[in-house]
């Protein structure tokens, strides 16, 4: 078996495990509710990054040479915490404290470098600037790690993203990778209804980015696209077409799952669905 196919198999399994953890966490969160849909749409992306692409040492979380990661759409944290767990930063017990009193796993990430949470986020439109700064620091210091930032398409309504979109190519940050989780929904409706970013790829390209548009649930495409390092001075924008609530038939593409309580009945149906997918795999 080639290294490539081993990686794909590992990412696929990791994503399935993460979806199972997300169900457990959402159920445990109970009445606190959780950002279920937007967490599930990024799972295959974070599994690819933390499972195979990023150069990290979970037993040395602040290792200088590590690739940096920013979940700019902080509400997608279910897809972040579960990746950190699978990668070895967070224990299962810790994962199950999600949104509980005294937990360090809030409904939006709170910086905790020892646990692999690089930055706090939740207020939208800030991660691209932060990542631009991280990438500039690496360039100035001749360090070769990369910085990965996941943004949302609802988040792309924020103008500050486009300030960073202008700045990153200007400063030739080919060590910066933005992944747009293009699930086509935002808090209270579809992008089309509320505010559509439109042809996001064309927009990034116009600013001077190298753009790749892929299926955000095709882990093979994700792996190949995100693994490729650039040296042409162009930052990389990956438009990842995703499905909000991906993985469970009751939540896929249903925006009522933006932030919603998972019932025990739904949980059981989802576990069954996941098991059949795992068996098929």
């Amino acid at each position, binding site marked *: 078996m080639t290294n490539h196919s081993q990686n794909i198999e590992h990412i696929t399994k990791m994503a399935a495990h993460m979806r199972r953890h997300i169900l457990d966490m959402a159920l445990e969160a109970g009445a606190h509710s959780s950002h279920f849909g937007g967490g599930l749409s990024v799972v295959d992306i974070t599994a690819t990054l933390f499972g195979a692409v990023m150069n990290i040492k979970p037993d040395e979380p602040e290792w200088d040479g590590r690739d940096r990661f920013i979940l700019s759409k902080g509400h997608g944290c279910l897809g972040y915490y579960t990746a950190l767990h699978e990668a070895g930063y967070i224990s299962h017990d810790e994962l199950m404290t999600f949104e509980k009193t005294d937990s360090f796993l809030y409904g939006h990430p709170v910086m905790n470098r020892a646990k692999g949470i690089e930055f706090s986020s939740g207020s939208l439109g*800030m991660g691209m600037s*932060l990542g631009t*700064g*991280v990438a*500039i*620091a*690496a360039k100035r210091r001749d360090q070769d790690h990369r910085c990965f930032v996941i943004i949302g398409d609802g988040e792309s309504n924020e103008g500050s993203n486009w300030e*960073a979109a202008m700045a990153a190519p200007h400063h030739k940050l080919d060590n910066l990778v933005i992944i747009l989780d293009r699930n086509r929904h935002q808090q209270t409706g579809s992008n089309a209804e509320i505010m559509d970013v439109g042809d996001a790829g064309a927009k990034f390209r116009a600013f001077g980015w190298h753009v790749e548009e892929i299926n955000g649930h095709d882990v093979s495409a994700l792996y190949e696209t995100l693994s490729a390092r650039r040296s042409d001075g162009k930052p990389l924008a990956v438009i990842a077409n995703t499905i909000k609530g991906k993985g469970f038939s009751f939540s896929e593409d249903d925006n009522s799952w933006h932030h919603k309580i998972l019932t025990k009945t739904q949980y059981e149906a989802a576990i069954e669905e996941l098991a059949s997918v795992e068996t098929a795999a």
Partner: protein
Amino acid sequence: MILDKRKAKGLSRIGSRAAYGMTLFDLAPDYDDLIVITADTSTSAGLDRFRNTYPEKYLDVGIAEQNAMGIAAGIASEGMTVALSTFAPFQTMRCCEQIKVNLGYMKHKVVFTGLASGVVLGTLGYTHCCIEDMAIMRAIPNITVLSPADCGETAKAVEAALNHHQSVYIRLTGGSPNPPVYAEDYDFEIGKAIRLRDGKDVAIIATGTMVHPSLKAAELLAEDGIDAAVINMHTIKPLDTELVAELSKTTKLLVTVEEHSVIGGLGSAVAEAKAPLKNAPPQIIMGITDSYDKAGDYADILEHYSLTADQIAAKVKASFINL
């Protein structure tokens, strides 16, 4: 930075913005990991020489302050020393939430400086004036707020801020020239106010450009037999509450003077410190009353808001007599 007569005079002549740029230029060799950022404001910040001499330590992010603050925090998160500056309203309000999340919440350390705060740019209108920055910055946890009294103190504040443990907002007021309060060297310590003049009747607590006319006002009051202490409250947060408590015991009237709104700035900070004290004296808050009424020439605006030495003295005298 050691201050002497010549240096104090020289800095005073160029004004606080150029003093800021010159200080960073002088300090640059001491900081290997320094990054100085502007938002298309290198000239306004006196940083053109820095920009040409230390391009590897200089970064322009264009007229995009939200991005500027995010980039500053991102660089700071990598452990580098970051000094960012642009005009005060854009430095504090345009990117206010970036300050909250990146500097306050995550505690990434950035020294950020508001150029031409107060009303010195009055002829450009109130878009370019800033009478709100102390109030807003003071409300964000983990941010230290400095308001230097003159150009020499600006230099000292910049150096102290670079070495400080958390983010610092430096509020620069006044034009060029900017009258010096200090002609000789002195100890500048963040959080420790400086008593420039003793007095048992009234304590005038001033900050930024208002320290100089307050000293003059104290002289005028002395002629009328009113003994006024003058305090340079260069640190708005954390406030020197010990000194406020002491002055509340030793004087009969507190007066705060600031080139800032009377809401939320030095006056409010002193009032908050005084509130729990038993038998504390009354307080007069002098500053820009809650309005954008009077734009125009700097001196005219100060006079409109009763912030000249004569007006401060008259107001203190009237209040003191009526105690």
